[in-house]
């Protein structure tokens, strides 16, 4: 069963690799590029951030609302240290150093969030991570010296080498896809490792795991560190995609959006994060056509509410239910 999922996922990645080429065959040039970079690419970037939440929720049972903030930490550290960003806060580093630095910072922030919330569970955890995320957001929004406050830091254009310019939508798409695939298979591998098994044990029964001699606290904090790293990758990509970062990127709206993506897609498997982010991005982009743009939030709120009420396991759950129904029908 598990290997079947991995095979399907691999096929999915291959299909996504070929998709830009396919789109170019059927759509006008501008639209093909738009779908590739700004629907699929954006969905993949957000999907990575959502997957850091899905990973924690699926295998640890932790619904953390701090993931968008952690992604923002990577973005901000990158923007603060990289050369060419406007305004220059510290600067002086190339992308080859600033990006890893951002990822380290995000991982550290993940560990910190894990450590702060280590003794709480369920809704307590939800509340605390939300409060932490909003605290960082308010700080970033009001602090000028380090984060340039409300305006944020612009002109983070991304690395460019001859033949490899991240500003090229195709290159960006493939970088994002590659990162997502690596992280996705990394997560699938990790959860079958001893660490992942202990994590799932903690989710189901922390006392028994502790009785077996494992440190529940350390495993929890480490899981948050892993999630922080994943979110950091997403945050780095999103900062380059947006040519910069501002507090709005990690505000309450953005934080809730990541939760919406994860829940719409389904918290049962990491792939749900990407399904959810794709659905969200399509809605977000075409809301003006589907429904009056001004009321986009009502629309997405209703979709979210209906999913929570009807199918708590999201789109994956709906899919699974349909399959069962079809199988039953055939018999």
């Amino acid at each position, binding site marked *: 069963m598990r290997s079947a999922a991995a095979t399907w996922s691999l096929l999915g990645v291959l299909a996504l690799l070929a998709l830009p080429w396919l789109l170019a065959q059927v759509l006008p040039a501008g639209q093909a590029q738009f779908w590739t970079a*700004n629907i699929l690419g954006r969905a993949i970037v957000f999907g990575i951030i959502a997957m850091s939440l899905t990973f924690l929720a699926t295998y640890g049972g932790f619904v953390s609302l701090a993931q968008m903030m952690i992604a923002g930490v990577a973005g901000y550290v990158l923007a603060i240290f990289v050369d060419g960003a406007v305004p220059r806060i510290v600067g002086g580093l190339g992308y080859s150093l600033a990006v890893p630095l951002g990822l380290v910072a995000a991982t550290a922030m993940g560990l910190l969030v894990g450590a702060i919330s280590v003794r709480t569970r369920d809704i307590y955890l939800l509340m605390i991570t939300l409060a932490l995320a909003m605290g960082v957001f308010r700080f970033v*929004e009001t602090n000028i010296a380090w984060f340039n406050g409300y305006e944020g830091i612009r002109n983070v254009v991304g690395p460019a080498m001859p033949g490899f310019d991240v500003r090229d939508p195709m290159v960006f798409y493939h970088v994002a896809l590659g990162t997502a695939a690596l992280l996705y298979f990394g997560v699938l591998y990790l959860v079958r490792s001893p660490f992942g098994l202990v994590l799932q044990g903690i989710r189901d029964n922390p006392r028994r795991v502790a009785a077996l001699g494992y440190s529940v606290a350390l495993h929890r904090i480490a899981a948050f560190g892993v999630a922080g790293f994943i979110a950091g990758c997403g945050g780095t990509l999103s900062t380059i995609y947006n040519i910069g970062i501002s507090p709005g990127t990690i505000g309450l709206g953005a934080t809730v959006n990541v939760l919406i993506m994860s829940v719409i897609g389904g918290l049962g498997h990491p792939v749900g994060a990407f399904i959810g982010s794709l659905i969200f991005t399509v809605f977000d982009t075409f809301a003006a056509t589907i429904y009056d743009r001004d009321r986009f939030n009502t629309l997405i709120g209703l979709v979210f509410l209906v999913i929570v009420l009807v199918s708590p396991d999201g789109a994956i759950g709906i899919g699974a239910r349909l399959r069962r129904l079809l199988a039953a029908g055939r018999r």
Partner: protein
Amino acid sequence: MTIKISRRVMLLGSAGLAAGGLAAGRIAAPAIAQNAPIRLGGLTTLEGPFATGGQDAYRCIQMELERINHTVGGRKIEFVRESSNAQADVALARARKLVEQDNVDIILGPLSGAEGIALRDYSRTLSGKTIVNGSSGASDTTLRNPSPNFFRFSTDGTQWMAGLGRHVYQTLGIREVAVTAGDYAFPYAQVFGFNLEFCRLGGRATHYWAPLGTTDFTSQIAQINRSNAGAIVVVHGGTDGLAFMTQYAQAGGNKPLIGGSIMADQTMLSARGPHRRVMIGMISGGPIADVIDDPTWRDFVERYRKRWLNEGGFQSPSIHGVNYTTNLYGILHALKAVDGDLSNNQAAFQQALAKAEITAPTGATVKLDHNRQAISDIFLNRIEERQGNAQVVAFDRARAINQTLGMPEEQFLKLGAPSRDNPGCVA
């Protein structure tokens, strides 16, 4: 509601046009490009706290496009609406959608400062497309690192304070002021513009900064009331400004008030309460006023009222509505000059934009400098009680104010970007 319907009508109209274009295409192929509608993408803020400004911007644009029957230089204009929530990344996503998915030729927008800088950066990556500002007013959008594809026919936050410092020092004879301002880029720019004149003449300013979103100013007001300041310069936006004014009135403040451009605004004046008492008589500077003694403005206001007063419009067009209209005028002027010719990567069109000299709805003349930034008139305003309503009345006009307030650009740039540590008071 009406906007929604008319958009649908517009889309229907454009479908018909497209069909017409196809029919014509069979006869003369090269004519297609010339007769196909020009696609103008609008980007403003219809979500979040700035939504009222964004709605008014679209009201004004719709009114002006209706007036010319959606036609300029022999070509139809098709207007595609998009909306952001005043966040830079959302504005960027919408702009990309307008360019790539909706295939617009020109973007008119955005509304707020950070969005403007994000779109400026994006415009640099485009070729054959032009972005003309909506209402965003950050100086750096055009002053530092300008983009060849970004044009701004509206003035910026520093320009809006032109003439105010001199008026306070020379006409009012005030030598010391207390400046209370929000701790972010837009108030920095405004305070900078004020101090540039006021401090240079010998005035002294004490600054009180408060983070964006501050709603409790009582401690600050207590300090200011105890100081020797002869007047208070207030540069807060939206809710913060209302909170300051209300608490100032409650504390029984009676020093003369000098307001930033967004303080003397109908959103503030139409809100009820004690702040209106202290705001009567407040002096401010800015690109518009409710009452300007100018026939162009009177005509514009009259048309605006006739069109929108019964459909949710304000008594008088808002600052965002006027800025969007001014920039729209720039686009229309250039399109007319080149007969709607957007070929050759819009080279001729962009040249015409750069050379355009237009009259804004306020009656101010506008032309662009070498950074494609407006040089235009700024009004000195006073809030007066007229027919039971508080109104912003222009009593003076500083003409042809450029982005460096008349200073040589090199010297101005050397002063550095405005910030809380660099508020423009360099002796």
